[in-house]
């Protein structure tokens, strides 16, 4: 297919720019990987010797293990609660009229704008006053509030894309509202709910700033444990942990893209 020379140069330049930007995005991950496999504690590029010792050390480190466990507990509770609360409210927002709906929605979406350190500080102060200082409850409550906006948006978008006529058909065939919800609405919303939950879980697991304020030594999540480690030690154990993190996340997202269609969830698919 013959095309004008200027068009091809243009396209080529475009490809270069995009490749450069992707390179920028990927650079830290690549560099961290190089550091993680380095046989020695001192950084060098490329590494003089290759080794897996930092991976072993990272996996054996007690604080990391505790942080991982705590993270799973907090995340499991927080994202599940957030899913239930968020999905229910999104449903009500989409279909129902009730007082204060705008206000509640605004407040629930505010963590997108309110800094996490403010939210963390606030929860810390309340917890101290109520005597729940830095217990798991506080941490979970804080995380629920922080990930709720994402769940809300994700479920809301799915609801908007849902064809109401399926529900009307079910009702005309004799299904009560509860039955319609269980047998028609929920199954159709499932992809949106799953991706909402996934988002919430990943964000909660990785949440750092607010967690720094509301966790204590025994409840600290993995990001907080990692932060403390970086401040004290300089060896590449963190690099090894980061690599495991990156690989796990990228794999998860690739699957999510393949099965759930990340593009659709993030609303970046073509309108036509």
């Amino acid at each position: 297919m013959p095309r004008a020379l200027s068009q091809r140069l243009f396209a080529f330049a475009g490809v270069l720019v995009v490749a450069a930007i992707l390179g920028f995005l990927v650079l830290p991950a690549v560099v961290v990987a190089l550091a993680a496999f380095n046989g020695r504690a001192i950084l060098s590029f490329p590494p003089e010797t290759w080794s897996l010792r930092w991976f072993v050390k990272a996996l054996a480190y007690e604080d990391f293990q505790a942080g991982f466990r705590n993270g799973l507990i907090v995340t499991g509770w927080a994202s599940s609660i957030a899913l239930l609360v968020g999905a229910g409210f999104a449903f009500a927002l989409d279909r129902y009229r009730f007082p204060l709906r705008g206000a509640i929605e605004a407040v629930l979406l505010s963590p997108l704008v309110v800094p996490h350190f403010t939210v963390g500080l606030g929860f810390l102060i309340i917890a101290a006053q109520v005597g729940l200082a830095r217990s798991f409850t506080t941490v979970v409550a804080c995380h629920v509030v922080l990930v709720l906006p994402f769940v809300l948006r994700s479920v809301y978008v799915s609801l908007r894309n849902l064809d109401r006529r399926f529900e009307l058909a079910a009702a005309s065939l004799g299904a009560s509202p509860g039955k319609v919800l269980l047998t028609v609405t929920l199954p159709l919303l499932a992809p949106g709910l799953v991706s909402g939950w996934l988002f919430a879980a990943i964000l909660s697991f990785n949440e750092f700033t607010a967690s720094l304020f509301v966790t204590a030594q025994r409840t600290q999540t993995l990001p907080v444990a990692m932060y403390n480690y970086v401040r004290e030690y300089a060896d590449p154990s963190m690099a090894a942990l980061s690599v495991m993190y990156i690989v796990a996340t990228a794999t998860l997202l690739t699957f999510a893209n393949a099965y759930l269609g990340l593009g659709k969830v993030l609303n970046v698919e073509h309108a036509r």
Partner: protein
Amino acid sequence: MIPAAAPRVDAQPFLRAFVSPAALCALGLIAALAAVLQYSLRAHIPGSLDAGAFTLANFTALLKPLYARVFLDTVWICFLTAFFSLLVGYPLAYALVRTSNVLVKSVILVTSVTPLFLGEVVRTYSWIIVLGNNGFVNTMLLKAGLIERPLQLMFTTFGVVVALVHVTLPVMVIMLAAALAHIDRDYERAAGTLGAGPVRAFLTVTLPLSTPGIIAGVTTAFAWTFSAFATPQLIGGGQVNMVSNLVYQLGFASFNFPFAASLSVAGLALTFAVLGLLRLAARPLERMGPH
């Protein structure tokens, strides 16, 4: 806000069940923010976590040049980050939306979105390894003979902004891509038939129609960056301080929660002010977008 003709309760089944938990969470959040507000207005009792009597001393203390400086620095860093994220993110979002190759699309999408899910600490740590004196950039430049001594990239505003751009880019790309995806391709084709080459068609049609996405992206980028903590903390290392770092220092180093609270309140007010200004500035631009 009860509508004039309130629908019958049974026309909205499970209303209470769906709304109550959410209302509860909203109350929780309001309580947390109210706690911050309350503490900001009370005196600090050194050595104790409780607060004393009501006072405005925390806010007047903010007027000291030291703290004003931190606020200005924060705003400046946020703008730089938002600006560069936009500059770097737009081509990527455009490529993501316009390419017909499914593999390329997936690669761009996953690559752009993955950093978003890695968490602040992992991302910041990676940049420490890239920017440090023994880090990747310096090692490469020294080997290539382009420099004789390592460049000081850590503990500088430059380093912090670069890392923050990396953090904000995914969000920017997602918002821009969402806006671009909804621009009908026929507009560009029509511009083409009317004599506009690819560049002119982009500048006169696609770019204006993507302004709502640009505004949403910049607004979100600003808010996100303001909330950043680990990045300025670890890469700034005390030399570059944003409001978030100051709040942490005051809260956990000096246990001066009231002052930390007042900083938070001021920061929040600042954020809302800037976002409000952005919205106002954006109003005439928003009319350009597709209806």
